[in-house]
């Protein structure tokens, strides 16, 4: 049974286009959501199916007409897929301005991909003070206006309902992370599928499937990983990377990955004004390289999580050319090592076909952790 559930996650994670076609065939409109954070609750409440657009493992060709080689491959591959028609049928693409490359992605998208409107989401970095919350709300109102232009209808009560659905999804995603940590038989590939599929399914469907998985896993006794690791980075969905983790006997007991747990750490608070509650949610968000934090709480969270989950080491999976992560890495290394937690750095991008350097790196890291 558990294998059937994992097979379903795998199927969805590896065939997003089929998922999109399914929703469109059902008469639904799909709105693409770019990294790192987008207001899925709002998009959902307005009658659209939000689908993650985090690029794909493709060779870059057309995107090079727009992007210099030193932009991150996630953004470049989103543009490449758009230009290749892979996203055809989508009603819009929402891109937040949370890093410099994302700012340029939206500008290039307007000219490179006709037929799929670009909807900007401008978040404040000073998100905690009242003026920051007000500006977040203004950003959401702008998104709502743009979604209305493509047929969406905004309603506060509907948003409140969507917030509940998303909070429930957050809850089960946090739970499945905890459960998988205690089930070393779950592979890194399977764990990746659970998280990645969330971008391609409606929140309700994904929640139901994850709950099934949790129930099945909890039927078997919890175990302890011989070599638990915490993985940190923006994106860790490369199958070859996860296969290497599995080959090395490394079990992911927690993650600090933008495309995984960072998405589910913060719930929308309760409140009559659902849109205001959404802005309050962003105010409460932290522990991420693209969210301003002079205290760098994210770094301590990685070290604390590693300790709490009994991880033997931290693997930082660096998406090449990702400034925000590259700036945090020296601090992560410093803080973790001071806490007695070894750190390995591996670099990935969406064009990688040879993972042997990573294998060598992780083999050495495994040997080090085994000593």
């Amino acid at each position, binding site marked *: 049974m558990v294998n059937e559930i994992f097979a379903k996650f795998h199927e969805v994670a590896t065939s997003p286009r089929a998922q999109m076609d399914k929703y469109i065939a059902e008469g639904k409109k799909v709105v693409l959501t770019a990294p790192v954070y987008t207001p899925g609750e709002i998009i959902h409440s307005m009658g659209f199916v939000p689908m993650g657009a985090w690029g794909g493992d493709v060779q870059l060709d057309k995107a090079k007409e727009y992007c*210099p080689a030193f932009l991150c491959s996630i953004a470049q591959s989103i543009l490449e897929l758009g230009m290749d028609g892979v996203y055809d049928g989508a009603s819009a693409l929402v891109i937040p*301005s949370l890093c410099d490359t994302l700012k340029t992605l939206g500008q290039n998208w307007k000219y490179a991909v006709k037929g799929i409107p670009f909807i900007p989401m401008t978040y404040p970095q*000073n998100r905690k003070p009242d003026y920051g919350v007000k500006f977040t709300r203004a950003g959401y109102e702008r998104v709502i206006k743009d979604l209305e232009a493509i047929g969406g209808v905004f309603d506060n009560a509907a948003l409140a309902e969507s917030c509940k659905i998303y909070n429930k999804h957050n809850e089960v995603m946090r739970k499945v992370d905890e459960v998988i940590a205690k089930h070393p038989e779950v592979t890194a590939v399977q764990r990746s599928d659970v998280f990645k599929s969330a971008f391609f399914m409606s929140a309700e469907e994904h929640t139901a499937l994850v709950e099934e998985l949790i129930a099945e896993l909890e039927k078997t006794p919890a175990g302890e990983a011989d070599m638990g690791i915490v993985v940190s980075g923006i994106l860790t969905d490369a199958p070859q990377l996860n296969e290497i983790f599995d080959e090395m006997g490394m079990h992911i007991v927690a993650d600090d990955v933008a495309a995984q747990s960072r998405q589910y750490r913060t719930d929308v608070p309760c409140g009559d004004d659902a849109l205001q509650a959404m802005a309050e949610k962003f105010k409460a968000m932290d522990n991420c390289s693209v969210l301003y934090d002079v205290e760098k709480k994210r770094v301590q969270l990685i070290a604390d999580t590693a300790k709490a989950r009994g991880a033997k080491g931290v693997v930082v999976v660096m998406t090449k050319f990702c400034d925000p992560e590259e700036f945090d890495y*020296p*601090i992560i290394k410093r803080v973790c090592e001071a806490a007695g937690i070894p750190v390995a750095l591996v670099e990935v991008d969406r064009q990688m076909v040879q993972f042997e350097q990573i294998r060598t790196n992780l083999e050495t890291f495994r040997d080090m952790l085994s000593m």
Partner: protein
Amino acid sequence: MAEEVKKTPRPVDPNSAKYKLGKIASDAYVDAIEAKKQGKPVVWISSNFPVEIPETLGLATVYPENQAAGIAARGAGQRMCEVAEADGYSNDICAYARISLAYAKLRECPEQEVAMPDALLCCNNICNCMIKWYENLALDLNIPLIMLDIPFNPDYDPTPEIVEYVGAQFWDAVHQLEDIFNIKWDDEKFKEVTGFSCTASRAWLDATSEACHIPSPFNGFDLLNHMAVMVTARGKAEAGEAMNVLLKEYKENHATGKSTFREEEKYRIMFEGIACWPYLRVTSRGLRDRGINMVTTIYADAFGFDYNSFDEMIAAYCSVPNSINLEKSRDKRIKLCKANHVEGLLIHNNRSCKLWSGFMAEMGRQVGAECGIPVAHFDGDQADPRNFSEAQYNTRVEGLMEIMEANK
């Protein structure tokens, strides 16, 4: 790469704009070091942070971007970058940031010493990279960071919401600094500083617009040096005075048929992007030797902080080159190209600056099409010498020149 031949610099007339502007730029470093010795507060500040704040509060300022450019121009860019890289910083990170973080660690660099800061003033209207850089500085130096967030504007003009958000942060920053340093804001002083800033900005805009004449009364590479004053001292009275001297000189040059461009001006181009400071002479000579004058850059527009009200001032800070959308960026370039009779566009794909380079290909195409001019790109870096090839630069400039010649 060719060896740079060092020549003894010609003496500079102390009444000239070049002397006055150079003195203002160098005095800024000296003044901050002196302030530090006297126990007065020093702040490190990003280039497009509202200078009106530290100037009104009387805080001595150091501009790490300016320092990094100076260090790179004097040949120490790679050495400092490697210090940061040894600490785990990727060599893909902005070279200014790497140099600055290295300086924060070493606290010395003979190529450009600065006073160490008591607080950091960060504004991300030029890039979000700035946020990460200053977060790390704050952590390493254990000092307060005042962060003024000016988001990238996807719309053409600043919205009332952005202006309100940034305006609120302006006063928040003021109050934080008052608390940190136990100092008081003075509205009269603020009014005076805004006057200086506007005067300097207007003179800068007027001086740079003298390039509309054929031939231009100046070599555009002059602007790369003079703009240091607009970065570091535009809120000071002497900046406006020196800029007005510059304007006067350019007018006189035009009237008397002179120019600081020493060759016959055969072609006129716009240079796009931050200068390759480690190769300033190489990039300048590659143009000058071919009779190509860089008559304008976006810097001509970038420091035009001319405003009549508080909200207009905030809107100006929301409209600096890296905080505006492609269409507005494009239109600013088109305006400069047309006003200055530009015949070609040379774009620096700056490895250090993802934001500036990220939509340059499309914007370059649109500017080229609208102005009917050829566009050439070259790869380089503002401060890391490892990312520039003189041969490629010369080949691209040669190609651009050939098309400009064919278009005549």
